[in-house]
C-alpha cells in the first residue's frame, strides 16, 4: 500500500515533469545538442574514411614542400624572399596573405576618401557636382563587381603603351607607366636606417607630449597653441637631422629603361625581348593587375560609402547646422566640428560592413591574374597539392582573422565616437 502510494507519487512526478515547460524545454535542448554533436562527428568520420578510401594524403606536412612555380612580382614577393621555384607552400601562403592585405588596406583607404568626397558632393548645392555624384553612385553600385574588374583590366591593358615603349613618364623618368605596370623609385635601405626609425618614433612621442601639454594649458587658461604644426615641424626636423647625421642610410633607386642594343653593366647587349624597364637594375613595379583590381574595388565600394556618408550627414538635425552658423562658425568649421562628428555615429557601423565587403571581394582577383590568396593558394598550390580540406580551411581562417580584426578596430573606433551623455 505504501509502495503503491509511492509509485503514484512517482508517476505524478514524471507527469509533472513532462508537462513542466521548463523541464520539457531542457530535454529538447539536450536532444538537439546531442544531435548536432552527432551530426558533426558523422561528417568528420565520413570525411576521414572517404579520404582514406581514396588514398589521399592529409595533414599539414605539405607546407614545408617546395612549390616549384613562380609568382608575379607583387608586394608579397618583395617581402617574402623567394627565388623562382624555390618557395615552399608556406611562403606561397604568406605571399597570398600579404597581397590580399595590400589590396584590401589600400583599397579601404582610397574608397573611404573617395566615398566621403562623393557623399558630400551628393549634398552639394552645386548642380554639376551633385549631378556627377548621383550618376557616379547609380552607375557604379549597379554593375556587378566582377564585370567592373574585367572592364578596368582590359581598359588598362588596351590604353597603356607597349612594353618596349617607356610609356608615360614623370619626374625625368623616375616614374614610368606602360603595359608592364607602374614603375617607381625603390627605397634602398642600408645600415643605420634603424636609428632614423627610432628618431622618428621619438619625435612622434615628443609631438604627442607637446599636444598634451598644449591641451592642458588650453583647458586651464584658454590660451591656444598651434600644437599640430609645431608637432609636425618637430617630427620632420628631428627625423631629417638624424637621417643626415648617420649618413643618409636610404637612397632612392630609380627604374631604368633599356632599349634594344643598349649595353648591360655585365657587358651583354640588351636583346629585343629584354628591352623595357628592368627592375633588377633598380626601381620597383606595380603590376597592372594590381592597379586594375585596386581601381575597381575602390571605385565600386566608394559608391556604397558615398550613400552611407550622405545618410549619415542627413541624419544630423538641421538645427545643429543652424546653431553653429548662429555662433558664427564658417561652413568648413560647421562641417568639420559639428556635422561630421555627429554623422560619424551613424556612418561607422555600415562603413565597417563595406570594409569587410571590400576585403572579401578582393578574392575576385583570380579573374585577372593578381596573385592574392585565393588565386595562388587555393588555385595553383591547391592544384599541385590536392588537399582541399586543409587548404580551404587555412584560407577561410585568413579571411576570418582579417574580418574580425577589422570589425574589432571599427567597434573600438565606434565606441570612441559614441555620444557621451552626461
Amino acid at each position, binding site marked *: 500500500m505504501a509502495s503503491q502510494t509511492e509509485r503514484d507519487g512517482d508517476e505524478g512526478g514524471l507527469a509533472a515533469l513532462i508537462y513542466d515547460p521548463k523541464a*520539457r*524545454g531542457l530535454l*529538447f*535542448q539536450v*536532444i*538537439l545538442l546531442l*544531435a*548536432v554533436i*552527432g*551530426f558533426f562527428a*558523422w561528417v568528420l568520420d*565520413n570525411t576521414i574514411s*572517404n*579520404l582514406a*578510401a*581514396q*588514398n*589521399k*594524403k592529409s595533414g599539414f606536412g605539405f607546407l614545408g614542400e617546395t612549390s*616549384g*612555380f*613562380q*609568382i*608575379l*612580382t607583387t608586394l608579397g614577393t618583395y617581402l617574402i624572399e623567394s627565388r*623562382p*621555384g624555390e618557395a615552399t607552400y608556406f611562403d606561397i601562403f604568406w605571399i597570398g596573405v600579404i597581397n590580399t592585405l595590400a589590396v584590401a588596406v589600400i583599397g579601404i583607404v582610397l574608397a573611404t576618401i573617395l566615398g566621403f568626397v562623393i557623399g558630400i558632393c551628393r549634398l552639394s548645392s552645386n548642380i554639376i557636382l551633385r549631378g556627377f555624384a548621383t550618376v557616379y553612385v547609380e552607375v557604379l553600385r549597379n554593375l556587378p563587381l566582377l564585370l567592373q574588374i574585367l572592364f578596368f583590366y*582590359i581598359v588598362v*591593358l*588596351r590604353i597603356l603603351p*607597349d*612594353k618596349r615603349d617607356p610609356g608615360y613618364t614623370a619626374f625625368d623618368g623616375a616614374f614610368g607607366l606602360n*603595359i*608592364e605596370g607602374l614603375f617607381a623609385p625603390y627605397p634602398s635601405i642600408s645600415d643605420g636606417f634603424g636609428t632614423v626609425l627610432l628618431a622618428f618614433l621619438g619625435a612622434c612621442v615628443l609631438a604627442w607630449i607637446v599636444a598634451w601639454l598644449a591641451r592642458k594649458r588650453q583647458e586651464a587658461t584658454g590660451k591656444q597653441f598651434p600644437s599640430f604644426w609645431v608637432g609636425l615641424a618637430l617630427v620632420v626636423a628631428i627625423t631629417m637631422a638624424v637621417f643626415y647625421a648617420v649618413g643618409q642610410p636610404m637612397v632612392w633607386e630609380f627604374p631604368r629603361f633599356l632599349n634594344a642594343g643598349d649595353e648591360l653593366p655585365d657587358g651583354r647587349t640588351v*636583346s*629585343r*625581348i*629584354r628591352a*623595357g624597364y*628592368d627592375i*633588377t637594375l633598380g626601381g620597383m613595379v606595380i603590376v*597592372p*593587375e594590381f592597379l586594375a583590381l585596386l581601381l575597381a574595388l575602390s571605385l565600386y565600394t566608394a559608391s556604397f560609402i558615398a550613400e552611407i556618408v550622405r545618410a549619415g550627414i542627413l541624419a544630423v538635425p538641421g538645427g545643429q547646422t543652424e546653431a553653429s552658423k548662429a555662433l558664427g562658425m564658417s561652413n568648413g568649421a560647421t562641417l568639420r566640428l559639428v556635422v561630421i562628428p555627429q554623422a560619424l555615429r551613424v556612418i561607422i557601423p555600415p562603413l565597417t560592413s563595406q570594409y569587410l565587403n571590400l576585403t572579401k571581394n578582393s578574392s575576385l582577383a*583570380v*579573374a*585577372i*591574374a593578381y*596573385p592574392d590568396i585565393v*588565386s*595562388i593558394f587555393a*588555385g*595553383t598550390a*591547391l*592544384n*599541385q*597539392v*590536392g588537399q*582541399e580540406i586543409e587548404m580551404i580551411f587555412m584560407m577561410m581562417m585568413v579571411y576570418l582573422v582579417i574580418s574580425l580584426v577589422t570589425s574589432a578596430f571599427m567597434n573600438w573606433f565606434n565606441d570612441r565616437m559614441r555620444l557621451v551623455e552626461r
Partner: protein
Amino acid sequence: MNLRKATGALSALALTMTASTAFADGHEGGTLASVTGNGAVQCGVSQGLPGFSNKDDAGNWTGIDVDLCRAVAAAVFGDANAVRFTPLSAKERFTALSSGEVDMLSRNTTWTMTRDTQLGLNFAGVNYYDGQGMMVPTSLGVTNAMELDGASICTNTGTTTELNITDFFRTNNMSFELVAFEKADEVVAAYDSGRCDVYTTDKSGIAAQRLKLSDPGAHTILPETISKEPLGPVVRQGDDGWFNVVRWTLNCMINAEEMGVTSSNVSDMMNSDNPGIKRLLGTEGTFGENIGVSNGWCANIIGQVGNYGESYEANVGADTPLQLARDGSVNALWTEGGLMYAPPIR
C-alpha cells in the same frame, strides 16, 4: 514555437543521416553500378579547347576528349549519347572528380606522379602525347626559347605548365615574369593585348588557342618542346571495375585502328574470320562481360564513335583548323613509329 522548430530540425537531421549513410555505401558499390543507375556517364571536360573538348556551332560537344567520353557511354549503354558533360576549369577538375560530381575526367589532363599517387586518382591511359611549347609574336624576332631572357609569360593557373616554365627558365638561368590566369580565354586576351611576350601551354593547346587571336598569322610557335605531357582520362583511385572500363575503352579504339576496323566497315568486320577481330568485336569470348558490360561493347564504340585514328583525324588532324599532322609524330600508331600502343584483347 521554438520547440516545434527544434523537433522539425531533429527529424530532418535524422532523415539526412540515414539517407547519407546509404549514399556512402552505394558510392563504394562501384562507379559502374552508379553510372548504370543514372543512365548516363557524367564526364568532366574542359571549358572550351578546340579539338579536345569544345562546343560546336550547333551546341554539341566535340573533340578527341569528348569522343572518349562518348566511347565509354557506348561501351556501358550501347549508346554514345548517354553522356552528360560537365565543363571544368583546370583548378576545379580534380576536386570535381574526387567528390563524385563527375564519373571520369577526359580533360586534356597531364599524367604526373603526384597526381597519380597523392591526389587519389588513377590515369587510365594516354589518348594524346603532348609537350609544352611557347608562342611569341613574330615581330619580336625570337627564333628559339633560349632567347627569352627577361620575357613576361602568360599561362593558366592550376596546371603543370606553371611548373615546367619555372623549371625551364631556372635551368637556363634566365629571368622571367609569370602572369597566370584562371581561364584560357583570359590568357589569350591578355597575350593578345600585349601584356605578355610569350604564351605557353601544351602545344596542342597553343594550336587551338591561336585560332582565337585577332591575327593568328602574326605569331610563331617556337620549336622547343620543354616538357612531356601525356594527356589521358582519369578516374578515382580504389574503383578498379570502373578503371578497367575506361582503360579498355581507350585500348579498344587503338586496337581497332591497328586492326583496320573503322566505323564504316565495322558491320562487315562482324563476319570476319580473324580471331583478333572476333575477340575485339565480341563475336568470340566474353571480354565485355568480364568488365561488366555487354560483349558487343567494342563494336558499339567503333560503330558509334570510331577508332582512335578516325577520332584524331576528325578533331585535331591535319585537315582540321588545329593542323596537328599525325604522320611521324609521337601520336602515330606504334606500327607507324609512334607511341600509340594498346595491349592485346585476349
